[in-house]
């Protein structure tokens, strides 16, 4: 027996009561996990326009699913607790409890996986943002193309809200034509020169949109001729830090989402702890109550344990059971001759286990 504890009737009652309270706490924490998942999902969906793929959505999806299943599972645990001290109603939960333990372990594993994933997917998130932002900047000028007309507003709003400029920094805007041809005067010499000097015939300039402007700058914002020191009075391009936002939007968004996911880490870990303690306590309650019902005096002491045999033996048993189930599921061509033989082979095996089990009560009696 693994980690056995003796339980008197009073201790069993206390355990049932405490477990009932803890199960309701676990229901609340399941609801908390669900709400956390919903919150993360809405935040990710809000910026879906600058993300290229939705791989990162697996984190909030798992959280929502785990939250819902956890609410149901722990509610079942509360019902089991309520019935545990009633000897007539407890036996009907026997089969369900096995499944319950499996589901609870699965939930804990999924929650751990979520914590690991939220760190592991950071690279994928950055890639997705890189591509999304690059497209956004490229289609900034296409406010007349259906399907892309919102890009200007999205990028402007993003840059102002997250206080960032461009993909890596503001120089990304120098490499893209962000002023549409509709607003360029092709008769002007300056425009013609610029377009001719570019290989692809694009109108590139060393300027940025107004949404890159930093309101904390002491000077009214300089947007155009940024690299030309002589174009503005008392201006040094290399030394100027406050004029525009210096952070890139990819970095800003990645930091924002990573911070959000990291701050949920402690919450998820404590929910895992609560779920594990409910699992362990319910196992003790189940074994203690079953032990008590098997005694002549149901109100007497009984032994509660985690596993009946050691870890290795339990594992072998479980493996044998699973293989048996698989064997019965398969179509056996030699079933007609083989099954009586299999039954005969099983009978001596049962006899040996009975013989092994029978000596143990005699020393006690």
């Amino acid at each position, binding site marked *: 027996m693994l980690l056995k504890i003796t339980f008197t009737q009073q201790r069993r009652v206390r355990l049932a009561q405490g477990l009932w309270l803890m199960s309701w706490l676990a229901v609340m924490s399941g609801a908390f996990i669900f709400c956390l998942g919903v919150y993360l999902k809405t935040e990710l969906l809000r910026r879906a326009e600058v993300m290229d793929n939705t791989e990162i959505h697996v984190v909030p999806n798992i959280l929502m699913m785990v939250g819902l299943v956890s609410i149901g599972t722990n509610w079942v645990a509360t019902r089991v607790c309520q019935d545990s001290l009633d000897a007539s109603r407890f036996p009907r939960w026997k089969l369900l409890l096995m499944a319950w333990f499996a589901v609870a372990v699965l939930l804990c594993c999924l929650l751990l996986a979520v914590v690991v994933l939220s760190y592991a997917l950071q690279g994928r998130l950055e890639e997705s943002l890189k591509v999304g932002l690059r497209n956004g900047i490229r289609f900034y000028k296409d*406010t*007349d193309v259906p399907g892309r*007309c919102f890009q*200007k*507003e999205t990028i*402007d*709003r993003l840059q*102002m809200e997250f206080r960032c400029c461009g993909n890596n920094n503001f120089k990304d805007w120098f490499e893209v034509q*962000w*002023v*549409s041809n*509709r*607003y*360029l*005067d092709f008769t*002007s010499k300056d425009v013609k020169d610029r377009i001719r000097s570019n290989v692809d015939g694009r109108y590139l300039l060393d300027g940025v*949109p*107004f*949404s890159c*402007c930093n*309101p*904390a700058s*002491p*000077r*009214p*914002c300089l*947007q155009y001729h940024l690299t030309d020191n002589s174009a*503005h*009075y*008392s201006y040094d391009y290399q030394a100027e830090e406050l004029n525009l936002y210096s952070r890139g939007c990819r970095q800003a968004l990645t930091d924002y989402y990573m911070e959000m996911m990291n701050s949920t880490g402690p919450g998820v870990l404590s929910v895992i702890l609560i779920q594990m303690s409910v699992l362990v306590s319910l196992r003790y309650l189940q074994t203690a109550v079953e032990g008590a019902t098997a005694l002549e005096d149901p109100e007497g002491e009984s032994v509660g344990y985690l596993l009946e045999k050691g870890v290795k033996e339990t594992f072998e048993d479980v493996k044998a059971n699973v293989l048996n189930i698989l064997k019965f599921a398969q179509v056996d061509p030699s079933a007609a001759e083989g099954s009586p033989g299999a039954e005969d082979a099983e009978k001596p095996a049962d006899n040996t286990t009975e013989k092994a089990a029978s000596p143990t009560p005699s020393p006690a009696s």
Partner: protein
Amino acid sequence: MAVLRVKFTKTKRDKLAQVLWILNWISVVTGAILFSLGLFLKRDIQYVPNMLIAVGLIACAINFLGGKICYDCVDTTKFLRWKLIMLPYIICTFFFTFCVLVGALMCYCMHWELEESLNLGLTEAMRFYKDTDTPGRCFLKRTVDMLQMQFQCCGNNGYKDWFQIQWISNRYLDMSQKEVVGRIRSNVNGKYLLDGVPFSCCNINSPRPCVQQQITNNSAHFNYEHQTEELNLWMKGCRQALLEYYTHIMQSIGLTVLITWLFELSVLTGVRYLQTSLENVLRQGDPNSESDGWLLENSFMETARMNLNIIKSLGKGNQIDTATNGDPNINVPSTSKAHYGPDNVPPKQITEDS
């Protein structure tokens, strides 16, 4: 002649107690919502959030007590515990709901106070926009920029307000350039005025990159018509935008508080009916019988008169009795009808000559 008398059977009383218990718990939740609303608004507005926080907390406390009382009212023995507290509780709650109503009405009346203060504040802020090197005013540029971006507005009444003030500091003006000197000389006060606006006035919904400088000069920009251009800059003035924003908040708060008030009033009415019907049951002696519940035992006028008399007599207890000139040793025959035992014979008066 009771006010709004209603007959209550035992089942009706029990049902009323249960319904009131649930409603009281809902009120506790509403009180908690008001409290958190007050906390949330605390960073934006000055005085109103404190009122909301106070209202929320008091509502929680009162309704928690009310829930407990109603839960116990199903059982007449437990009701005896609360009997003496119930009437003061109802009176307190009535005053509280009255204050809540006053608060809600105040929310609707605030807005013309706001307009004046907003007007003054914005003009000053715009005037000191360029003074980012003056201590005490260096943050105004940032404040005005953030305000214009957040509330999607430009200037006090419109973007033309920026044409009338110098919003570019002299530190960034090249005084050796002819154009700059020309502009300054052409202005009476020597200010550098231009037909341009700060970047925070730019409208993000514009299909075109923002035109900030030389706004009134059509020939300075390609395919640009100053009069018809509406999407380039924010058209609304900041005073108007701020006023609308705060009025909207106030009205929402006022509506929430008003609904809370109606709810509290209905719960209070239920508790009053429960109290009077249970007291009548105790008076009749049989816990399972029917009883009457009412709002007031007598009509309004009589109740008011009775209460005034009580207050007057309380006041009289402290006063000196003028009939004896303040000397407590003089025997003044009492004016009220004294009850002298079963045959009503007054005792022999001891006179001084006997």
